[in-house]
């Protein structure tokens, strides 16, 4: 089987089928932390780290993992990396670790990781699998950052905690509350699928 070139993997995971938007995977645990950009960034990087390394590990082990317990092994490996990230955050970024709270642990159930392990790492060599996982995670980070950029600017008038709003700006409190996250991600998906529908129609003609 032909092995994809790293550049092709990166382009595919970041641009053509960005994991969150295309497959609507992995929305779960992370929307809650998108009310500030800093939390989104740390969460996204943590997730990319876990996706990359677990894809690498699972791909390296792919010929020795018994098929029957595949899912169990995947979960074990992913949990181990998540625990490692959790310890890392507790040791070096205690403030953020506290704010993210249980949501770090919930990276385990993030569908992206399992999705990459099942769809790619299982049938590809370790290095491409790692690149695939890492960039799937980074694409996801990008989406989280876009959502949190909108929420933070409108909700607090800040970007990464720095004030950008003009004097007299009244923060939109709703932006920091859960409903806004749903509206924003809904609108982003809407915009993208509307564009794709238009392109498809153009090609059909």
């Amino acid at each position, binding site marked *: 089987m032909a092995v994809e070139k790293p550049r092709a993997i990166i382009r595919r995971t970041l641009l053509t089928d960005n994991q969150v938007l295309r497959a609507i995977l992995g929305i*779960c645990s992370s*929307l809650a932390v998108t009310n500030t950009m800093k939390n989104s960034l740390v969460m996204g990087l943590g997730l990319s780290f876990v996706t990359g390394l677990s894809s690498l590990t699972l791909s390296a082990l792919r010929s020795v993992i018994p098929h029957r317990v595949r899912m169990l092994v995947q979960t074990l490996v992913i949990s181990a990396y998540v625990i490692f990230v959790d310890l890392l955050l507790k040791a070096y970024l205690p403030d953020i670790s506290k704010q993210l709270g249980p949501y770090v642990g919930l990276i385990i159930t993030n569908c992206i990781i399992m999705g990459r392990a099942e769809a790619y790492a299982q049938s590809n060599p370790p290095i491409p699998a790692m690149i695939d996982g890492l960039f799937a995670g980074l694409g996801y980070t990008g989406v989280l950052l876009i959502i949190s950029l909108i929420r933070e600017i409108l909700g607090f008038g800040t970007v990464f905690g720095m004030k950008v709003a003009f004097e007299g700006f009244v923060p939109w409190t709703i932006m920091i509350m859960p*409903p806004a996250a*749903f509206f924003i991600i*809904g609108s982003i998906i809407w915009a993208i699928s*509307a564009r794709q529908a238009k392109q498809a129609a153009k090609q059909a003609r």
Partner: protein
Amino acid sequence: MAPNISPLIIFLASIITSNMILSNFLGMCSYLSVSGEYRTATGLGMAVTLVLVLTTAINWLVYQYVILPLELVYLQYIIFIMVIAALVQILEMGMDRFTPDLHAKLGIFLPLITVNCAILGVTLFMVIRSYNFVQSLLFGLGSGLGWWLAINMLAAIREKMAKVKLPPGIRGPALSFIITGIMAMAFVGFSGIFTIQ
């Protein structure tokens, strides 16, 4: 030390004011993908509620009597997820053997549940908030019912929307998200409906 909060309040709050989906964003994957049809949504809601109650009970016992005495707190994620996976597996086999009717109805949903963030989420929240056994059990039950309520509402609305003419591109997940946003906004209005103490 368990916080001094009435289990009943935890139960109500986890259904209404802090719904797993509408304010904690947990369990979104299956919520979005299995909400196309009201009947299947009901089945999944039931299965999630059942598994939530059982896993909170078992994970509570495991935490108190295995993890804490052996000082394995740093391994808790791995232990909890394994308990959940094992429980779901056993439940599926047990159902298949003893209640084939129920298995036919709920069985197909069980594999989806292991990776449902709401299940692990409830366990982690319960541990972090150091609830006692009764509080945990009602928190699990309430969260399950709240999740069930949310998916049923979305499924009902989506069934109605199926016949409506909509702008291009909105049909599918985008619409589900926007509907959920409106529901979440309505649910914010519930906060303050009951008082503690």
